[in-house]
């Protein structure tokens, strides 16, 4: 508790300083453990580090090599495909489920945790189950055929061109419920009076959603976008658990690339260079968002 009996001057001064003192440890921690480490990584990306960090500068060599490595291209293209589909589909499904759940649904209390729970599980836990379900010999394809739908085919996970889409499916499974929760919270926060008034003016349901409700959900859209894009860029467990980058190297993503090069292939310099590129991508998405968000709110 704050001190109550000391001199007024001291007390006021203390009160002025307290907020900063309380915030200071977090700030110091961030500066060291986040920005210090980022600086370290940037430095590493210009060194010839292989197994352990070394401090011999080699200029842009790591970046040059990075862009000559075929898997890096694959990884970047995959991320683009994955991130865009993942964000769009999760948002659509999340929004749809939220709107449906918002219709005074019986059993909402039971349905909500069912939609939400995948977010609670790590892919170390669910990866094998997904691998099996998508495996044509034992999973969905085999089951449907057993039930008599002989021509049913679903073998994307074995197909170099399609495997990345199976990762999208599993990722959507994991996060769309969470997106649903964010939209549901947004919907529940909308003032009913406005809706009633609009209805009185003869607006149809579709019009109400398009003109009034969706625009009010803008903050939820933004939060969903930010959370989903950071999950997409960081996605590592997912790929490792489901395909381990295969078939071939067709499902590599930048996070996988970075881990592989830094820790498995003893090319820490190239790994660091790929991390820097990833960080710059994150910054490119996040900084404008943070800027807009923080300026607006002051």
């Amino acid at each position, binding site marked *: 508790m704050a001190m109550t009996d000391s001199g007024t001057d001291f007390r006021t001064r203390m009160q002025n300083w307290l907020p900063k003192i309380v915030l200071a440890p977090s700030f110091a921690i961030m500066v060291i453990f986040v920005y210090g480490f980022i600086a370290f990584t940037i430095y590493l990306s210009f060194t010839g580090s292989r197994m352990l960090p070394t401090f011999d500068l080699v200029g842009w060599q790591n970046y040059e090599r990075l862009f000559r490595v075929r898997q890096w291209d694959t990884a970047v293209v995959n991320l683009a495909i994955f991130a865009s589909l993942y964000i769009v589909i999760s948002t659509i499904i999340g929004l749809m489920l939220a709107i449906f759940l918002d219709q005074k649904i019986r059993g909402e209390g039971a349905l909500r*945790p069912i939609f939400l729970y995948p977010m609670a599980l790590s892919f170390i836990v669910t990866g094998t189950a997904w691998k099996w379900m998508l495996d044509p010999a034992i999973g969905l394809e085999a089951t449907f055929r057993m039930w008599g739908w002989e021509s049913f085919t679903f073998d994307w996970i074995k197909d170099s061109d399609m495997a990345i889409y199976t990762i999208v499916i599993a990722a959507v499974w994991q996060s769309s419920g969470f997106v649903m929760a964010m939209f549901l919270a947004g919907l529940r926060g909308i003032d009913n009076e406005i809706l009633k008034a609009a209805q009185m003016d003869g607006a149809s349901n579709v019009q109400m959603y398009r003109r009034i409700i969706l625009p009010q959900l803008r903050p939820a859209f933004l939060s969903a976008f930010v959370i989903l894009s950071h999950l997409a860029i960081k996605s590592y467990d997912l790929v490792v658990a489901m395909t381990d980058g295969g078939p071939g190297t067709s499902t590599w993503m930048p996070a996988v690339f970075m881990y592989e090069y830094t820790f498995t292939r003893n090319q820490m310099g190239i790994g*660091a260079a790929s*991390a820097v590129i990833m960080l710059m991508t994150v910054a490119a998405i996040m900084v404008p968002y943070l800027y807009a968000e923080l300026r607006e709110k002051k």
Partner: protein
Amino acid sequence: MAVASNENAMRTSRVTRVLIYVTLLVFSLFYLLPLGIMLINSLKPLSEITGGGMIALPQQWTIEPWLSAWSSAQIGVEPTGLRPYFMNSIAMAVPAVIISTVIGALNGYVLTKWHFRGATIVFGLLLFSCFIPFQIVLIPMARILGILEIAGTTYGLILVHVVYGIGFSTLYFRNYYAAFPTELVRAAQIDGAGFFQIFWRIMLPSSGPIIAVCCIWQFTNIWNDFLFGASFASGGAAPMTVALNNLVNSSTGVREYNVHFAGAIMAAAPTLLVYIVAGRYFVRGLMAGSVKG
């Protein structure tokens, strides 16, 4: 998309409602399928699984895999099962969640109610830290834990999780407190209440929903973390996910899939429980501020 309407405000036709229910049910199946498969296979003898029927129901039900995963499966050289590691995870997650939530709450309070120059920048810096790929911190973090002499211990792991949990916990509390009437704080100040008194008497009592959201989020992330656990606390202090990985991922040994699935469900049980028990606070807490921006 089917035509729908907002609650209280309007009606929907019978056909629409049937469609909505059907869609919701189909999606429930989609969400439940992986868990269902894990459950079914954890109750089968191994021969039924390698024999091919991975999606079929067990012909012969058995709880043997569960017993084995809990208390006798080989995690390291000793057949300990997952039990001791479960305790490690609790000893790691509980303090880490509490500490990061407390720090987040104080930070959120300072950032919204005690404006000072640069506060926004500090928040921006904190927030950006949520988005760094954690792989890059492994090596420098290892060095620091070594200097502090807490490498390979639960303490070290708690420190790591607190450090990288502050960003999100601050984000949650800051957005929540931003919607909290500042007039109340000012009034209390005029009445002579101090910094911590205001926090303790005014802010905290109304923070229930956001504490729930923050704890759920942190607990899920910390409990499920593998990368930090494996890198900084392997061996005796290893958390559940690392032990599960040891169980599931042996490279050149015989694989007992049924035991793996039983272990996986065990590892997931605490977070599942948290979501089911506290799930409704989650939406309520999100509603109360964190997405309203």
